[in-house]
C-alpha cells in the first residue's frame, strides 16, 4: 500500500525557519532595535571584591542623568530567589546597595544620548569606596577567621544540607568495602559566554501605564514577573518581548539587577532606555556556572560490584544566592549515581558565600560535575582493580529490563538500554586506528557514560525540592479562517531551533503542510504563561509535548466537524497534508478551507461544538525524562608540551523520539564543544581575595574550530513513555559527559598521572606540570 505511506515530519531534517533571516542580516537581536527618543545606559559596577560606598556624587550635567544606589534601593523591591534550599535564610537580593561584595556588582546607572556618552558620564561620577577584606575561594571562606562577606553574619556559610543515605549508613558500607577509591575533585567556574551578551530596551508608556521590555532572555514570563515585582507594578503592566536570542546556555534565565535598573531608568525618564552588556561586563556581571569541590569516594566489592558512592560538596555560591542558589549542587547530588546500581548514595552540601560573582545556571547544571566525579572514580576503580573500564561499567549498569527503576536519590529512570550505548562506543573505539606513533606523543582512548535529568518537570516535584517555578508548559494551536496555522508557546528560541521543531510536531499531529504553520514565541502579551521558560532541556519535552496534545485535539475537532457535515463517523476520517479524507482514500472528502471558513462563522457545527478552531493544551509531565549516552574520545598527548589533541569523538545517545535529526546532532556537537572547553581550556580565575583574573576572550579561552574533532554520532530512539510525542531533552548531554570522556582518554594515554586527573581544565600547563612531577621529562 505505497499510497498510504507518507514521510513523517517527525524525524525529518526540515530546514530551520529562522535560518534565512539569520544568514542575511535580517535577524532582530535586541541591539538591532532602535526606538524614537531612545537613550543609552551604562552601569556603574564595583571594581573591588568588597567595600562600602562612602560617597556618591553624580555632578551636574544637563545632558546626562544618573541614579545612585540609595535612589535605586528606595525605588525597588528586592529580586526574589526562586530555588530555596532547606534552611536558606537569604530569600531575596537588593537591586542596588552601598555594600559591595564582588567585582562587577552593579550599584548605579548613567544614561545619555549614546552608549559612549553614557560611559563618559559613568566615569565622571565621583564614588568613594572604602575597601574591605575579601575572600574568593569557598574552602578559604569557611575557615575560622575568614573575611566575612556579610559582616553581620557569624560565618560565610550560606546553606548546608544532605541528600540521600545518611553518613552513618555510608560510613558502614565504606568501612566494610574491599576497595575504596577516594579523590578530591575541583570543578572550576565557567563563564557561559553566549556570543550575544545580555541586553534590553525598556520603554514606559505613561498613558497606558505599561512597561514594554525587549530583552535577550530564555524566560520572558519569569523576567516579566520579577520586573513587575521589583518595580511595584502589576504583572499585566509589564510586557516582555524576546526576539532573536544569540545563545543563552543558562545565563539568561532570570532578570538581573542591572536589567531592573534599566527599567527603572526608563520609567523615571519616560524615554526608552537601551543597555547592551559589553564582554568585560559579561565576565563579571553575568552569573557563572559551577565552582565546587567534591571530596568523593566509591566503594567496590571483590567482584567489581559498586556498593556506594558519596560526595562531600563544598560549593561556592558567590556573593549572594542566585535565583537558583544551591540548585546545581542539589542536581549534582541527585544525579551522582548515573546509570549504575548502588546500594547507598549520599552527599553533604556545604555552600559558602565568597566575594565573587554569584553562581547560577549553566548548560549541564550540576550534572557535569556529577559526571566528572563519578566517571573519574569509576575509571580509577578500573585502573586500580585491573579491570576493563567497559566491563566494569557494563557489570554495574541498569539493564533495560530493570527499567523503570527508582534510584537511591529518588529518580525514576524511565526507559532505554544504557548498556547498548556503552557497547556501541566500545565497539567503535575497538575499531579505531590511531595516528602513526611518534616518540614523544602518547595516544589514548577513553569513554564515559551518563543518564540525564531533562524536561523539568512535574510541578509537584519542583515544589518538593524547593524550586518555586511551575514545571508545565502550554501550547496554543489555532487554525485561522484562511487555513493557516498559528502556534504560540511559552518556551523560547535561543538558537536551538525550537521554532522549527514545534512547527514539525504541530504539522505532523494536526495533519497540515509545514509551510502553513507559523510558530511565535517570546512575547508575554501573546504567549501562554510559562513559569520556567527554556531551561533544563525542557523546551521540546514539555513545550513540544503540549504542542503534540494541542495539535491532536484540534485535529480531532476538525474531524468531528467534518464528520458532522459528511454524516460519517469522525473515526473513519483522517486529516492528511491539509486534506480531510475518508481513511483509505486519497482524495479529499470535503473542502477543508470551506469548513474552516464556515466554522469561524459559527455555521455547520455539530451540537455543542464551539466555533473557534483553537486549542490550548497544558502539559505538566508525570516525570522527568531521562536520556542517556556514552561518549568516547581518542586523544594524543604531547609529553613535552602537555598539549592535548582530540583526534576522534564518538557519541551513542538516546534522547527518545528525534524530531529533527540535524538539529539534534547540532545540539550534541555544540554541547560537546562546551564540554571540551571545560575539559581543556575554560576556567574563570579568581585570586584568593576574589579579584577576577580572566576577563576577556584572550585569557579565558573558548574552544576553536581547530580544537574540535570530527564527530561520529549514533542515535537510538526509545520514546519517553510519559511524554506526548516521546521526546527527551538533548540540550545539555554533550556538555555533561565530554569532560570525563576526554580526561579518561588522557588517563589511558598517560597512566602515570591518571590519579591526578581531578581538576579541569586539563590544559597544557597543568598536564605538563603533572607529567613533569611524574618523571616523564629527562632533566
Amino acid at each position: 500500500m505505497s499510497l498510504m505511506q507518507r514521510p513523517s515530519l517527525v524525524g525529518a531534517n526540515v530546514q530551520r525557519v529562522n535560518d534565512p533571516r539569520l544568514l542575511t542580516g535580517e535577524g532582530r537581536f535586541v541591539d538591532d532595535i532602535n526606538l524614537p527618543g531612545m537613550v543609552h545606559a551604562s552601569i556603574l559596577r564595583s571594581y573591588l571584591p568588597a567595600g562600602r560606598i562612602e560617597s556618591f556624587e553624580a555632578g551636574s550635567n544637563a545632558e546626562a542623568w544618573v541614579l545612585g544606589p540609595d535612589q535605586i534601593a528606595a525605588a525597588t523591591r528586592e529580586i526574589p530567589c526562586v530555588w530555596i534550599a532547606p534552611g536558606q535564610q537569604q530569600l531575596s537580593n537588593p537591586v542596588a546597595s552601598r555594600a559591595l561584595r564582588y567585582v562587577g556588582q552593579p550599584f548605579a546607572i548613567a544614561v545619555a544620548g549614546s552608549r559612549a556618552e553614557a560611559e563618559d558620564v559613568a566615569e565622571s561620577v565621583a564614588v568613594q569606596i572604602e575597601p574591605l577584606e575579601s575572600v574568593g575561594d569557598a574552602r578559604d571562606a569557611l575557615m575560622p577567621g575568614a573575611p566575612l562577606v556579610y559582616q553581620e553574619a557569624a560565618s560565610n556559610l550560606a546553606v548546608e544540607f544532605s541528600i540521600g543515605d545518611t553518613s552513618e549508613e555510608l560510613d558502614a558500607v565504606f568501612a566494610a568495602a574491599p576497595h575504596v577509591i577516594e579523590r578530591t575533585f575541583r570543578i572550576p567556574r565557567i563563564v557561559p559566554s553566549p556570543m550575544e551578551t545580555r541586553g534590553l530596551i525598556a520603554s514606559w508608556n505613561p498613558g497606558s501605564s505599561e512597561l514594554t521590555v525587549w530583552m535577550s532572555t530564555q524566560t520572558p514570563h519569569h523576567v516579566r514577573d520579577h520586573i513587575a515585582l521589583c518595580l511595584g507594578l502589576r504583572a499585566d503592566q509589564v510586557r516582555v518581548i524576546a526576539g532573536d536570542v544569540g545563545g543563552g546556555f543558562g545565563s539568561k534565565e532570570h532578570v538581573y539587577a542591572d536589567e531592573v535598573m534599566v527599567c527603572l531608568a526608563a520609567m523615571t525618564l519616560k524615554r526608552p532606555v537601551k543597555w547592551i552588556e559589553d564582554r568585560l561586563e559579561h565576565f563579571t556581571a553575568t552569573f557563572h556556572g559551577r565552582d565546587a569541590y567534591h571530596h568523593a569516594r566509591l566503594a567496590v566489592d571483590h567482584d567489581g560490584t559498586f556498593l556506594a558512592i558519596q560526595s562531600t560538596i563544598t560549593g561556592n555560591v558567590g556573593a549572594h544566592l542566585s535565583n537558583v542558589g544551591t540548585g546545581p549542587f542539589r542536581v549534582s547530588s541527585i544525579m551522582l549515581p548515573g546509570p549504575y546500581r548502588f546500594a547507598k548514595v549520599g552527599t553533604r552540601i556545604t555552600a559558602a558565600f565568597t566575594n565573587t560573582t554569584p553562581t547560577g545556571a549553566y548548560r549541564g547544571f550540576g550534572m557535569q560535575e556529577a559526571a566528572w566525579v563519578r566517571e573519574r572514580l569509576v575509571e580509577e576503580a578500573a585502573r586500580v582493580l585491573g579491570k576493563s573500564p567497559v566491563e566494569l561499567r557494563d557489570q554495574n549498569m541498569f539493564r533495560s529490563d530493570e527499567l523503570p527503576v527508582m534510584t537511591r536519590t529518588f529518580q525514576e529512570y524511565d526507559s532505554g538500554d544504557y548498556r547498548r550505548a556503552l557497547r556501541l562506543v566500545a565497539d567503535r573505539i575497538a575499531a579505531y586506528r590511531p595516528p602513526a606513533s611518534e616518540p614523544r606523543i602518547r595516544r589514548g582512548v577513553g569513554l564515559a557514560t551518563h543518564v540525564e535529568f531533562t524536561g523539568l518537570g512535574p510541578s509537584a516535584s519542583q515544589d518538593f525540592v524547593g524550586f518555586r517555578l511551575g514545571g508545565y508548559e502550554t501550547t496554543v494551536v489555532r487554525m485561522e479562517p484562511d487555513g493557516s496555522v498559528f502556534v504560540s508557546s511559552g518556551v523560547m528560541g535561543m538558537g536551538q531551533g525550537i521554532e522549527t521543531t514545534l512547527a514539525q510536531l504541530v504539522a505532523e499531529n494536526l495533519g497540515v503542510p509545514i509551510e502553513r504553520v507559523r510558530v511565535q514565541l517570546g512575547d508575554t502579551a501573546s504567549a501562554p504563561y510559562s513559569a520556567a521558560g527554556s531551561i533544563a532541556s525542557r523546551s521540546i519535552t514539555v513545550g513540544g509535548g503540549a504542542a503534540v496534545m494541542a495539535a491532536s485535539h484540534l485535529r480531532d475537532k476538525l474531524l468531528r466537524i467534518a464528520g458532522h457535515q459528511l454524516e460519517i463517523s469522525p473515526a473513519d476520517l483522517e486529516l492528511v497534508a491539509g486534506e480531510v479524507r475518508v481513511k483509505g482514500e486519497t482524495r479529499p472528502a470535503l473542502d477543508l478551507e470551506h469548513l474552516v471558513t464556515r466554522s469561524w462563522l459559527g455555521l455547520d457545527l455539530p451540537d455543542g461544538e464551539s466555533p473557534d478552531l483553537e486549542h490550548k493544551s497544558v502539559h505538566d509531565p508525570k516525570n522527568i525524562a531521562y536520556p542517556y549516552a556514552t561518549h568516547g574520545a581518542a586523544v594524543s598527548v604531547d609529553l613535552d608540551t602537555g598539549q592535548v589533541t582530540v583526534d576522534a569523538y564518538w557519541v551513542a545517545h538516546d534522547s527518545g523520539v528525534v524530531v529533527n535529526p540535524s538539529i539534534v546532532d547540532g545540539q550534541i556537537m555544540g554541547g560537546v564543544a562546551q564540554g571540551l572547553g571545560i575539559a581543556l581550556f575554560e576556567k574563570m580565575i579568581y585570586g584568593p581575595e576574589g579579584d577576577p583574573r580572566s576577563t576577556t576572550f584572550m585569557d579565558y579561552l573558548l574552544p576553536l574550530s581547530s580544537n574540535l574533532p570530527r564527530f561520529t554520532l549514533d542515535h537510538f530512539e526509545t520514546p519517553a513513555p510519559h511524554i506526548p510525542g516521546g521526546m527527551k531533552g538533548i540540550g545539555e548531554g554533550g556538555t555533561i559527559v565530554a569532560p570525563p570522556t576526554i580526561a579518561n582518554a588522557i588517563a589511558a594515554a598517560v597512566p602515570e598521572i591518571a590519579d591526578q586527573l581531578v581538576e579541569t581544565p586539563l590544559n597544557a600547563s597543568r598536564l605538563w606540570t603533572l607529567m613533569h612531577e611524574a618523571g616523564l621529562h629527562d632533566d
Partner: protein
Amino acid sequence: MTDVQQFSCTVNGLQVSTAVDTRTSAADFLRQELGLTGTHVSCEQGVCGSCTILVDDAAVRSCLLLAMQLHGAVVETVESLGGLDELSTLQQTFSAEHGLQCGFCTPGILMTVEAAKRAGTSAVAVVDELLPGHLCRCTGYDNIRKAVQVYLSPEA
C-alpha cells in the same frame, strides 16, 4: 567630547558621504548610522570575529576599525550577500549543513569565507587557518567546516 569629521565610502554598492564622531567604530557606524545590523558586535576587541566585514575585498574586524578609516574604501557587509528570497549559494550551504544555531557569529564567518572565495583560498586553508579566527559557542564547528568544504570544494 565629540569631534565630528566628514568622510565617504561605498557600502554594499551605495556611495555614502557623511559625518561621524571620530571615535565611532566602523561596526557602530554600520549598525547605528546605516542601520546595517547584520554585522554583530560581541567582544569589541578583535578576538571573536562576529563583526567581520569586507573592506576592499579583505576580511577585517569592524570593531577594531574607526569609521573614519573606511574613507575611500569599498565596504561589504552580510546584507550584500543575498536577500531573504534569494539566498546566495554560500548562505544556502550554511543552512543545508546546519552550520548555524543562534546565528550571532554567522555573518562574520560568512564574510571571511566570502573573502577567501574571492582570493582563491582553498577549503583546507580556510578550515585550518581562517575558521579558528571565529568564535562560535553553539555549533561545535563541525557543520561550519562541512559548509565551508561544500561551498569551496563542491566536487570534493
